């Protein structure tokens, strides 16, 4: 049933622009079969559906295979250093709230070296979309354990298997108080595209955990293994129920896909009154002269 509906939605969906309009001339350098291709397609499609103008998009991406994302989408972008997508995205968005800001990280970029920034971005509820492309491995550095690697997994740095429990990004986001928390699977790129569209209209920090297997370095988390575990979130799930969302995230038997949680809360832009602030006509010199008075 759900599937039929999805197909119908797909058919009735009117794309405002063509997905190919967002392609740059650069050919993605990912390995054949890399999960990130699905994410890229999802982005092209989502942008086409929204009909967004390339000039209004800023993609901030980290270091990793996934970090190459920005080069393949026509838009403004900043390919930053490892783990620092969120601070830089924050600056970009606050300084120019008219932009649609997207952050793209790998699982290592987001949850290992960059893990300290996420709770604070969630607290701020800045309006942006953050996509974590999770292959449960360090791809670009050729196969070391990541924070989402299954504990048993043997990798370059865990030759006899790991010894750390994996983290669940969805559960973390819920604990941090993120106001939009979803999970996709890049093999199902249409669903990912839909999540991106939804996320783009969310007034706050929207996180999409996108499972995106690495067929080259990860022999444990594969398209095959993931496909057997995924299941759409039940339709009757109340997306404003945080406890219920956590329960779904903690489900040991299934990987749930879809929107776990969404609530309306003032965004950072609202709280700081950024639109008003930037709209103000200020005579800076006069104001500075007033300020100087105070020091006389």
């Amino acid at each position, binding site marked *: 049933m759900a599937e039929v509906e999805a197909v119908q939605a797909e058919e009735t969906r009117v794309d405002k622009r063509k997905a190919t309009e967002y392609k740059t001339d650069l050919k993605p350098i990912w390995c054949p079969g890399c999960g990130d291709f699905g994410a890229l397609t999802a982005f092209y499609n989502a942008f086409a559906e929204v009909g967004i103008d390339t*000039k209004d998009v800023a993609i901030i991406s980290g270091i990793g295979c996934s970090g190459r994302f920005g080069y393949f989408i026509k838009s403004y*972008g900043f390919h930053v250093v490892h783990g620092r997508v969120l601070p830089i*995205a924050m*600056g970009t968005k606050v300084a120019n709230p008219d*932009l649609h800001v997207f952050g793209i990280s790998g699982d290592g970029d987001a949850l290992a070296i960059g893990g300290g920034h996420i709770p604070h971005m969630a607290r701020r509820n800045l309006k942006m979309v953050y996509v974590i492309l999770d292959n449960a491995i360090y791809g670009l550095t050729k196969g070391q354990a990541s924070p989402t690697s299954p504990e048993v997994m043997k990798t370059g740095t865990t030759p006899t298997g790991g010894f750390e429990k994996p983290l669940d990004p969805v559960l973390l986001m819920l604990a941090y108080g993120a106001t939009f928390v979803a999970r996709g699977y890049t093999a199902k790129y249409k669903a990912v595209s839909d999540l991106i569209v939804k996320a783009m209209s969310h007034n706050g920090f929207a996180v999409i955990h996108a499972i995106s297997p690495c067929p080259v370095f990860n022999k444990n988390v594969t398209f095959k293994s993931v496909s057997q575990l995924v299941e759409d979130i039940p339709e009757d799930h109340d997306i404003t129920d945080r406890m219920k969302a956590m329960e779904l995230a903690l489900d040991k038997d299934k990987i749930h896909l879809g929107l776990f949680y969404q609530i309306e809360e003032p965004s950072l832009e609202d709280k700081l009154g950024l639109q008003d602030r930037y709209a103000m006509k200020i005579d800076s010199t006069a104001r500075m002269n007033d300020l100087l008075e105070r020091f006389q």
Partner: protein
Amino acid sequence: MSKQDIVIRIGGEGGEGVISAGEILSRAAARSQFHFFTFRTYPAEIKGGLAMFQLRISRRQVLSHGSALDVLMCFNQEAFDNYWKELKPDGIVLYDPKYFTPPKAFKNKSIPLELEQISLDSSGTTRGKNIVAVGAIGEMIGIPYDTSAKLVEEIFLRKGEKVVLSNQKALKGACEYSKKAIQKIDLGEPEMSQDEHWLILSGNEALALGAISAGCRFCTGYPITPASSVLEFMARELPGFGGTVIQCEDEISAIGACLGASFAGAKAMTPTSGPGLALMTEMLNLAFMSETPIVVVDVQRSGPSTGMPTKTEQGDLRYALYGSPGECPRVVIAPASVRDCFFEMIRAFNIAEKYQVAVLVLSDQTLANRTTTVKRFDLNKIHIDNRIQPSDEDLKNDIYARYKLTDTGVSPMLIPGDPRGAFIATGLEHDEYCTPGYTPELHSTMTLKRFKKLDTLAADLENGGSQNGHYFMDIPKGAKIGIIAWGATFGPIREALEMAKETGVEIAHLHPKVLWPLPDKQIKEFISSVDKVIIPEENYLGHLSEVIKANYDVKPIQINKFEGIPFTPEELFQNIMEVG
């Protein structure tokens, strides 16, 4: 007694009102057409411990906190024990006999000043203790009661009429007592005219005001002594100018947010100190590689590591110049005075934006916290540079070369949201069009491009491309010795050289404010015009010395003080005469 200037130190337990007494006294002095210069040390502990406020007052403008003390006001025994040695032979001690009395053997003149008792007698409460200190000292140096009383009113008004009155009474009582018990010191007639406008500013305040005047509209930071007050100042004032301030989760996030904001078109800065600066290392590299303008303020404190957070040191210069893995020069600016803090911040932003580089501004703990009289800035004379944006010509053919090779090395920079193009800023090696590339040719071409910008900047500075001097140079006739120095030692050096002049010795002085790129021509000229170069620094290693040695044909004599406290003019004078 008449004097050119007077150095007053108030010492006591932190939290006892030592600092507030000093602050009120200095503002009252300024309103009475005095110039002043303050120096304070905070206890390192959270509460308690010895706090000290030193105030030098004069009719002329003074450039340092002075050397030996004319007046030492001790709130307690510890203050006396720690500071009496710094008194001049004719320096006097004021003390509250309730807390302690100098020993018999102590030779200087000591005058009892019963802080609590006078307060109690005149206002009915002992709470006016610090105001008594203000009144007594004010009277002694000729601050009219009315001026101080007015100030007391302004300060305490928000606590209510009663508090104002009570404090004014304590003030009055103190003045009366002072008239009787303490000899007046005559500091001469005002030089400052009534209609000149003088500001009372600390270095950190001047930095923040400079940043806002330069057009900074985005500021992030993570609290750290002694830089927090810049962040706090910005948090209070920047929103009124349409800007935004966010306290971040750490310094990496703070500088990252600034890079993001700058990428998005805003002028951005983050203030910090040593430990925080250390964490910004990787991002400073990204700024350089991606050619994103940014200003980082480093209010130096005594290190290494957590070190002595409330003490001073000129210990970050080597890091500022060289502290980056990979080849990634930074522009480094060190203001030499409170006034400089304002103007050098404007220079910092101008350079950052014009050359699309990271600029590090090195202040220090003493410069940050000292207050002094500063001639009011003429905002109409400030020149602002902005980043160059691509012309329509640059954008024809629908391809925008973000990292275009140009004669200056500087490429026009599009601002996201501009419909004329798009680009992806990057920390990977890249070609003109932002595409990652790793050929030998590309890397050498782009390396040269990035370094070219520094050469362009050096040439522009040389050609006076900047509004006011990026160095101070004075080569008096007959000078055989030359001092090269940087940062906040400027004032004490000027005064030390005055002393030398009085003994008949002329000494040259070069004080670059832009430390990288160095004022090459001037340094060469300076070095060749003197026989000996002396470099005094408040650090152990002699950072500037090392740079000068690496770049010029000279073997400077080093004078290094590494005690966490600044040079006094007297001590510098002695040292220079010794080694010179």
